[in-house]
């Protein structure tokens, strides 16, 4: 089905999940200031990615698997994972979906088709292809969604995996989320295609698979192209590469500090490292959520009042999530010896 044929329900569903992801990520970010010490290590946010995430996942069939990188909070929210469980995990608590064993970078909820994440850049691309191999060997008809950043696309794992996935015609869709920053490094310092003025989707040519670039701030454009790629994968035609372009509105992650120095989210690298305030302001002005909201109120999908309802519900939901997570107990220290071996 094309995006233009989507019914009101589906469009409202998309907006609802975009709002929920934003509210969740704002809470994570806010925790660093409001409750220092509650979140440990490194957390990576998906604010700015909502349209890309939701537009892609709207194409899913119930059993399709989703395997993103460590910037992973947004996807399980759409898949139906308990947001209380996600926040409790990020808050190191026993009620976390990984019982406090993994944290922000290593969320997993196999029951909701989210087998797990790795914190090593690009390593998960191979894992996603592996999940697709399972689907192929067992003939389940599943497709696997592999999400990763532009930074991953210079790792060996990217090249090796895409080649082998193409050779084996694995039912996987590779979604390269290009937000033009790899941690603190601007893409113009590290990508030969970008430097030559070519889109990153061109990398697909190396494997003779379809590659297309989409506006990742428009969930319907993402929906259409990912949908086509998913159909191809499900029909046994193998993988595709979708370059989804959008801006991440937060910096790479909370500042890397060593205890006892407290950590928090600073300014986006565009401003902090490159002094490019204009670029950042433009990205903020192009925020996918108000943009989609305006589109949907504009074409009569919902009213301004309806949109406010959705936003308020998301706000209330995530307020509860924070309360729950703050009150959740810590794991018993001796739990640390569990789960080493199956």
């Amino acid at each position: 089905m094309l995006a233009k044929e989507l019914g009101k329900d589906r469009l409202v569903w998309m907006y609802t999940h975009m709002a929920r992801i934003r509210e969740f990520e704002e809470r994570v970010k806010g925790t660093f200031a409001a409750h220092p010490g509650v979140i440990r290590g490194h957390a990576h946010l998906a604010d700015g990615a909502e349209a890309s995430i939701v537009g892609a996942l709207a194409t899913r069939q119930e059993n399709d698997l989703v395997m993103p990188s460590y910037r992973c909070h947004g996807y399980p929210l759409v898949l139906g994972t308990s947001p209380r469980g996600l926040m409790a995990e990020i808050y190191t608590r026993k009620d976390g979906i990984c019982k406090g064993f993994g944290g922000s970078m290593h969320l997993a909820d196999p029951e909701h088709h989210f087998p797990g994440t790795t914190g090593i850049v690009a390593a998960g691309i191979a894992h996603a292809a592996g999940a697709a191999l399972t689907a192929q060997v067992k003939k389940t008809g599943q497709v696997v969604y592999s999400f990763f950043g532009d930074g991953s696309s210079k790792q060996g794992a990217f090249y090796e995996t895409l080649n082998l996935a193409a050779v084996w015609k694995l039912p996987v869709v590779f979604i390269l989320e290009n937000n033009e920053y790899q941690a603190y490094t601007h893409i113009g310092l590290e990508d030969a295609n970008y430097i030559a003025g070519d889109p990153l989707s061109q990398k697909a040519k190396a494997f003779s698979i379809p590659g297309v670039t989409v506006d990742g701030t428009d969930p319907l454009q993402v929906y259409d192209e990912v949908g086509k790629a998913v159909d191809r994968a499900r029909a046994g035609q193998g993988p595709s590469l979708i370059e989804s372009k959008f801006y991440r509105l937060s910096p790479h992650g909370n500042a890397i500090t060593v205890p006892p120095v407290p950590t928090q989210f600073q300014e986006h690298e565009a401003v902090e490292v490159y002094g490019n305030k204009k670029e950042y302001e433009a990205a903020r002005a192009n925020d996918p959520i108000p943009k989609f909201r305006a589109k949907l109120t504009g074409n009569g999908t919902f009213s301004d009042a309806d949109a406010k309802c959705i936003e308020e519900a998301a706000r209330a939901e995530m307020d509860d999530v924070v309360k729950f997570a703050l009150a959740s107990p810590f794991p018993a220290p001796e739990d640390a010896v569990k789960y080493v071996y199956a």
Partner: protein
Amino acid sequence: MAREMMFAEAIAAAIGEEMQRDSNVIFYGQNMAMTERDPFVKKFGKSRVRITPISETAELGIAVGAAMTGLRPIVELYMSEFMLVAFDQVINEAPRLRYMSGGQVKVPVVFKAGFGFAAGWAGQHSNCIYHTMMGIPGLKIAVPSTAADAKGLMASAIRDDNPVVYLHHYMLTLDKGEVPDGEYLIPFGVADVKRAGTDVTIVATGWMVKKSLAAAELLAKEGISAEVVDPRTLAPLDVKTIVESVKKTGRLVLVDQAPRHASAAVVIAGEVAEHGFQYLKAAVKMVTAMDTSVPYSEPMESYVLPSEEKIVQGVKSVLAMQAAAVQ
């Protein structure tokens, strides 16, 4: 019933039997299953038996992802050093994912690789790198020394729900042994006393077991009774059986084809120092490779590696030691 077969045949038999038993077991690697004439392809088809390009990161990473989602992949790596190309998947992905997920996933992979090829394969293809993988929580390591052990450990490796590195010594490939027919499983973490003795305990793995048994024969001619213990798995490691043996003999010689600080010997020595000190009548002796890479030319290759003669000398040096008086 048992049959005589070669070490490599025994491994293939285990893989074939497990693939027959469980349709989730798949097998792939470079330069294998090239055509439909391949016996594994003939029996199990091209979906479950595949050829890969030279892409270890993808081979191992895909195995991890497939294992997380219900398959039981065996990856043929040929040489343990090739795992180094993709060591993130071996050390920092496969054994970590279950733990980090709070026990929600398991990663039942077998990474199969030959090692220790001391026949002129030189610096990069003759190594023993198991020390880099020992002690990594969540990762298991099997190192058979006989055809029967090769079969039993491979079957167990495939049935194990954890990531297993299965290392088979190249110099043992053609060695024959009695191998039980049908289902034969050797549990991990259970050492095997390959030769009973009373005067000294020799602990060895892989090809070094064979050399230690030959050394024990030479020693027996001089009236020295050596017990040879083969851990069979380096992780989990059966410290208990080793300490029991040291309790009996009072003397320990550790034989390892790796260089000293890169050996399993040094790990075992540490365990015995802590758990078996009271039984030792003499200091522990480690007979390992010298601290060089493995040279190409034969006289040099033999010079740096352990041999029957060096093992015999090691045993004699331990017997010659006076135990320090400890009250």
